[in-house]
């Protein structure tokens, strides 16, 4: 009995110190082994823009960028954030408050209703822009052309929206690439 008690106390005490870039700011914190990145971002750093939807990797509301790539933060262990570069929806906005073109485009197209999916959508669209912009740099990788409407749809399959019917969200994304083409 005593031994068990000791063991469970030990368990609680094991914390990991991690350090990473969060929206271009170096941060350090102590976490439990099983903490997921979504909870860390929302509860420890009070960045509430990243939404908890299903906690099962299904809805994409919790999407953040890890080293520029989109990941479900609900299924990502915070331990593995150590040393990485993490961007949340709050990191898209410039320090003077100017919105990112992805956000502008979503607003312009009326692609937001209740807004619960919006941060995740914005992060996924931003990730697709990153992939497109960085495409030419990785040897052996498929060359990426400007994504077609169907490719945009395929890319956003992991982001569910219960309100808009998707058309306006896809319009918003498509227009960003049309702009890049000019």
């Amino acid at each position, binding site marked *: 009995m005593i031994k068990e008690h000791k*063991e469970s106390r030990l*368990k609680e005490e*094991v914390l*990991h110190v991690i350090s990473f870039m969060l929206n271009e700011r170096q941060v350090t914190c102590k976490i*439990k*082994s*099983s903490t*997921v990145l979504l909870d860390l971002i929302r509860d420890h750093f009070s960045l509430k823009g990243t939404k908890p939807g299903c*906690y*099962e*990797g*299904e809805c*994409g509301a919790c*999407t953040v960028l*890890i080293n520029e*790539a*989109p*990941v*479900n933060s609900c*299924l*990502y*262990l915070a*331990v*593995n954030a*150590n040393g990485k570069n993490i961007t949340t929806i709050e990191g898209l906005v410039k320090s003077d408050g100017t919105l990112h073109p992805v956000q502008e485009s979503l607003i312009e197209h009326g692609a937001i209703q209740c807004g619960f999916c919006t941060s995740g959508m914005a992060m*996924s669209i931003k*990730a697709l822009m990153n992939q497109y912009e960085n495409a030419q740099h*990785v040897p*052996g*990788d*498929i*060359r990426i052309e400007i994504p077609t409407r169907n490719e945009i749809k*395929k*890319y*956003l*399959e*992991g*982001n569910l929206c219960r309100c808009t019917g998707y058309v306006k969200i896809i319009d918003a994304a498509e227009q960003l690439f049309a702009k890049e083409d000019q």
Partner: protein
Amino acid sequence: MDFEIINPATTLELLGTINELQSKHFRFGAGYSDLLMELKKKPEENLVVINLSQIKDTAFTGLTISPDHVRMGAMVTAHKIVMNEQLNKDYPVLHQAALTLASTQIRQVATVGGNLCTASPSGDIACALVALIAHCEIMDSTGKTKSIPITDFFLGPRKTVIKKNEFLNGVLVSANNKLSKNIYSAFLKIGTRRSMECSVVSLAYHIQTDDDGDIIHAGVAIGASAPTIRFAKDACDYLIGKRFDHIHQKEKEEFATKVLSYADPITDIRATAWYRKEVLYNLSKSIFE
């Protein structure tokens, strides 16, 4: 969900950790897209997770293409497979399987090792690798490796041959036959939704023909149709020597019947056993249509 985590940074440290933990209950964690869901549904007591995702060794994380084979470290992600031009060209079945796996976000983290070791009958990358008759490179805690054909890897749902002191280090796929002129290779997945779905049935095939159009190599695997992914050997043998573009209706039916003889599907929330068989039969015929 609660567990302790250990983060080895090299394969050597990993071996040490496995040795130290032999008397404890531990699991490996790679991309965590299966493991976290499993632990949330069914927490395990006194669990230690050995985190594979901070190991830097390229044998574990890299993808190398040499003249006689492709080697993927266990930590190669579905995203990495999708993005590789050579794999897309030489093994369309693998490219397509990786591309239909879950979503953009999950493909970033989901690994080849996780897809194989979770041993789900509906694992997409696993199904493609069975059709490609890949070899699994298993390492034990002394650092010794052995290579076994993937057809011997799965023992049942969620069960593989990997023992407690072992882990999957990588996967090898042989280069295509030097005489092969055309490759007919694809991954067909039927789900109740187009994406993000465990398949109702899946069929992976990789068929090579020579200059005359005769089939010189055939690999066909079925997913979500039996307790494990299965290699349809009789169906593959049946094709050898036939002209790919001259397969008659009767032969298509015989081929599909042979594929179906490997199926032993269940009825569950996604589909009935009857439906799975019908779909599989028609998918098999569709290869030649």
